[in-house]
């Protein structure tokens, strides 16, 4: 297993994109913290950056990377290696590379500038969002042979989770305002990893007052110790399920 991960990591490091991604995040993070005296404001800005760029870069880079590795995958499949080993190694390699980039770019300045517990939660959320979108990329890349279609699907999924889903939830909230749907809303947000991450972080930053009555319900759920653990578990499920489906598909794929 380690040998393939090593090859993947070396290949990604040689590819300058991940390096520039790390630098971009670092420039953003350092400038945000040095511009604002109030670290809470800086955190909010960083949160928004994280919830847009991290999923975008993770999903697009990974999708293209998998398509470009098709020769590499084909070569390995004819060798005495299990298919699942190839696929898992690719996943771990990509995750390690992008998580490292995230940590260097955003994680490190956060640990230095923000209160420790927020820094830690923020980091873990960032890591999870990264691996979730890599997993989704693996799924869309395995579902279609056509590169343009696969990348298109990834972009659509990114749009859906980062923008559309939020709009849909808001729309539903207004339409069903007369009914007691607050409990249901908590469940519905679980359907989007980006929303779970956002609410989780907003509650950590203690600005949940902005969320109104629903916010109180969220706070009651996510704010408590158990709520945080449950949300992290759900984020983990979000990383594992798409990947496991893609693994199952890959094991049956004709190359």
């Amino acid at each position, binding site marked *: 297993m380690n*040998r*393939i991960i090593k*090859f993947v990591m070396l*290949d990604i490091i*040689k590819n300058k994109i991940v390096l520039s991604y790390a630098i971009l995040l670092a420039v953003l993070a350092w400038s945000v913290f040095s511009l604002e005296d109030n670290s809470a404001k800086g955190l909010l800005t960083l949160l928004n950056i994280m919830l847009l760029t991290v999923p975008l870069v993770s999903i697009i880079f990974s999708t293209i990377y998998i398509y470009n*590795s*098709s*020769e*590499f995958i*084909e*070569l*390995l*499949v*004819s*060798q*005495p*290696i*299990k*298919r699942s080993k190839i696929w898992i190694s690719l996943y771990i390699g990509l995750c390690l590379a992008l998580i490292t980039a995230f940590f260097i770019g955003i994680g490190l300045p956060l640990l230095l500038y923000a209160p420790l517990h927020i820094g830690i939660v923020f980091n873990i959320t960032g890591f999870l969002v990264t691996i979730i979108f890599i997993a989704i990329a693996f799924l869309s890349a395995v579902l279609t042979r056509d590169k343009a279609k696969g990348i298109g699907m990834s972009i659509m999924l990114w749009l859906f989770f980062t923008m559309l889903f939020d709009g849909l939830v808001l729309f539903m909230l207004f339409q069903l305002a007369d009914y007691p749907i607050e409990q249901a809303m908590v469940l519905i947000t679980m359907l989007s990893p980006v929303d779970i991450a956002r609410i989780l972080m907003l509650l950590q930053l203690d600005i949940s007052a902005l969320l109104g009555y629903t916010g109180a319900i969220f706070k009651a759920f996510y704010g408590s110790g158990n709520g945080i653990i449950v949300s992290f578990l759900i984020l983990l499920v979000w990383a594992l399920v798409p990947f496991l489906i893609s693994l199952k598909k890959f*094991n*049956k*794929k*004709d*190359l």
Partner: protein
Amino acid sequence: MIEIQNLSKRFGKLQVLHDVSLKLNKGECVALIGPNGCGKTTLIKSILGMVVPDSGTILFNQKPINKDVTYRNQIGYMPQIGRYPENMSIGQVIHMIKNIRKSETAEDNELMHTYQIESLSSKKMRTLSGGTTQKVSATIAFMFNPDVLILDEPTAGLDPIAAELLKEKIIKEKEKGKLIIITSHLLSELDDLVTHLIFMQEGQVRFHKDTQKIKSETGQTTLSKAITHILKSGYHE
């Protein structure tokens, strides 16, 4: 050594392999021939596990291949069109495969020397010509002294000298008692190589015979003439 039982595979509406059953033994040199799109490459890729059949089983040394991948340690495969990571150099590709196979037996670097691959070792795969890529594929296929060699159109794209060198190497390996499976369209080239012939058409095996027998049955001296004779007379079994 390799036993294929009732193998079927369809790609969408196209039935590529239709109930194929074959038995290939050690020491044989089998030529797999047939018109374009008759399922030769799909059959080969099924043996390698690159294509997952819809039904049927493939046994390698009496063991089904879908349980354990270690059987591929005993196979050297030369693809029809070698596809390699573009930004890796020849040296890196060879190094990576050596790393993955971890073979205990001594490496067979004969083709590497005859094709002078070492002198090209820093060249990137994307800059290589089709022929050089084929040379790299051949080198890798023979490198680990496998018991089974699967060569898909081995001489296509090679210059005459390189093709001749490859043929000599195949004969040498055949004499060591290995199972060699070759697909080719150049029948004249196979003449002094093969011991058995498999003719495929529309995803089915039309016949699987000893070449001596084919020649004596048709009364022809060369393989290509014998085959044309069979096809013309509409001979099927």
